[in-house]
């Protein structure tokens, strides 16, 4: 059984981000034209730049096996794990001109090396360990059944590479936002049957820092080299907040709950009603835009809404299928 495996080569142009915070006022890009083989990963290219072209070129790597999480960088703006990402795939995605940059340009220290302090601070802030009363002299093992272990939904496989964190648009805008990796870690412990933390779920439900400020762009799910699906974990944290009764009565929470209220009433959404229920008196701040929208025929009053046909079916299903309370 021998299928012939052909190694091919192609010429690729690399535009590589260079910066030394100790010496350079501004970063610059160095061009390297290289023959790339179909067997190589992005890390091989970084190595060859260092070994063949410029010994001062800096980047992080350790395990070379997608385990340590050190080597995450960006290729053409896409966060990626250098030791895992095949060059062939990168060329297929982006063509033969590739831009190699650190995960976050504004945090660059030297070339690909960034200051990841914010990432670790966020990680620390979600109580990233089991909170449990442990018998110091146990007589039996503290076992977790396979069924309970499944609840983690592989969140424990996160390698803290930061690829998702620095791909998240909210992290860039709101410096309090914990970010997708921290949320995945929070879920990992919240889902653990041994954990008794009283504060973690509340912390990740606070405004600005918490899950409710996630804009649902799916960038984190798209980049994660370990298929952790952080946005999926964020969704689960939302649900847990209701299950555990820690959902705050704020605009974000009412916004989620408001959909159900609208659906029961109309089948479809009552857009204005949803904003009113979510915002309460604060709705006044939306009035200037709402007025303009009204003049353009973009606002339908509650009595003008065309309800879903067979609304009774929807109402019956809402009654029989609801699983959450607020």
């Amino acid at each position, binding site marked *: 059984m021998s299928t012939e495996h052909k190694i091919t080569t192609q010429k690729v142009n690399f535009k590589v981000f260079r910066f030394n915070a100790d010496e350079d006022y501004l970063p610059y890009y160095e061009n390297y034209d290289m023959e790339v083989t179909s067997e190589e990963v992005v890390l091989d290219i970084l190595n060859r730049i260092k070994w063949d072209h410029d010994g001062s070129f800096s980047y992080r790597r350790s395990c070379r096996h997608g385990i340590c999480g050190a080597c995450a960088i960006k290729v053409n703006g896409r966060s990626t794990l250098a030791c895992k990402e095949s060059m062939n795939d990168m060329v297929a995605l982006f063509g033969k001109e590739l831009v190699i940059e650190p995960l976050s340009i504004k945090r660059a220290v030297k070339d690909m090396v960034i200051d990841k302090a914010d990432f670790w601070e966020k990680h620390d802030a979600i109580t990233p360990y089991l909170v449990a009363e442990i018998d110091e002299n146990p007589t039996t093992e503290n076992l977790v059944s396979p069924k309970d272990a499944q609840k983690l939904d592989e969140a424990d496989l996160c390698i803290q590479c930061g690829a998702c964190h620095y791909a998240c648009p909210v992290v860039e805008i709101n410096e309090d936002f914990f970010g997708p990796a921290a949320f995945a870690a929070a879920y990992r412990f919240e889902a653990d049957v041994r954990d008794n933390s009283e504060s973690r779920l509340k912390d990740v439900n606070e405004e600005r820092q918490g899950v409710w*400020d996630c804009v649902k762009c799916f960038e984190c799910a798209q980049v994660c080299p370990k298929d952790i699906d952080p946005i999926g974990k964020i969704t689960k944290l939302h649900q847990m907040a209701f299950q555990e009764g820690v959902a705050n009565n704020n605009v974000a929470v009412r*916004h989620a709950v408001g959909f159900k209220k609208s659906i029961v009433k109309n089948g479809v959404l009552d*857009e204005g009603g949803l904003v009113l229920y979510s915002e309460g008196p604060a709705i006044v701040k939306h009035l200037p835009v709402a007025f303009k929208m009204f003049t353009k025929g973009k606002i339908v009053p509650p009595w003008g809404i065309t309800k879903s*046909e067979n609304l009774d079916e*929807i109402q019956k299903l809402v009654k029989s299928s609801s699983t959450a309370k607020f």
Partner: protein
Amino acid sequence: MKKLKYALFTGCTAKQSTPEQMMSTMAVADKLGIELVELTEASCCGASHLQDYDDFLSLVLNARNIAYAEKHELTMVTICNTCQLNTAMTKQRLDNNEELKAKVNEKLAEVGLEYKGTSAVTHFLYAIIDDFGLDRLKEMVVTPLSQFNIAPFYGCHNIRPSELQNETHKTAENPYNPTSLDDLIIACGGESVDYDEKNKCCGFHVELQAPHTAAVLTGNAIAGAMDGNADWMVTPCPLCHLKLDTQTAHASEAIGREVELPVLHMQQMLGLALGCTPAELGLNHHLAKVDFI
């Protein structure tokens, strides 16, 4: 070629804050000879928020919507990226989990319905590209948009997570370098603008709880298109449209720069190229001036 026929899931926005999207969808379908059977029984998809509160309820409601498309034995077509995401994700979860599907069907049986998994779910953009075909579309263009630089704004929920999207649409879209909307612009005779924000987020889903974040994202998107020398923007998503069209004042304030461009729904752009009148396309329903016609 056989006439294309779909079950249309309009979503809520097209019936309320973006009436122009509904009008232009029908006008364009008419021009192209595509038959759309509106699913008037459908409920709201939950807009990617309901499942944060009640996942099972969200599944049941979305399964019900698809079940109605199945009754018609038609592919469901959506005209909103977020409807597409919620519906396709429901379908993916039910089709790959017999136990969950049985649980959902137990509920649907109470109202005499069943989710079978027989109807595909696709966004109108991909129905045109995958089923209708761009070559055929090109032949039908009567008013090529050749004098315009048009900035495509894809919207997150049509391109990410790509695993789901590529299972749903025949066109395999690269989320880092999507091409479908660019191809549509070119088929309409326009020039497509390349800019960094074209596959980024508009911020819609945190509009209420994180207005600053939402406004910065909207501002960046319009600014990117302006810097790319765009005459106008086009999007397949009514939620992106709402942000880009109605929130320019907040967006300008948030990024410290005046930003505004005409923003068209993908259907309106198609309609212009196919010879529909501005009135048929509801171009008078926009907040940002549509002054290029």
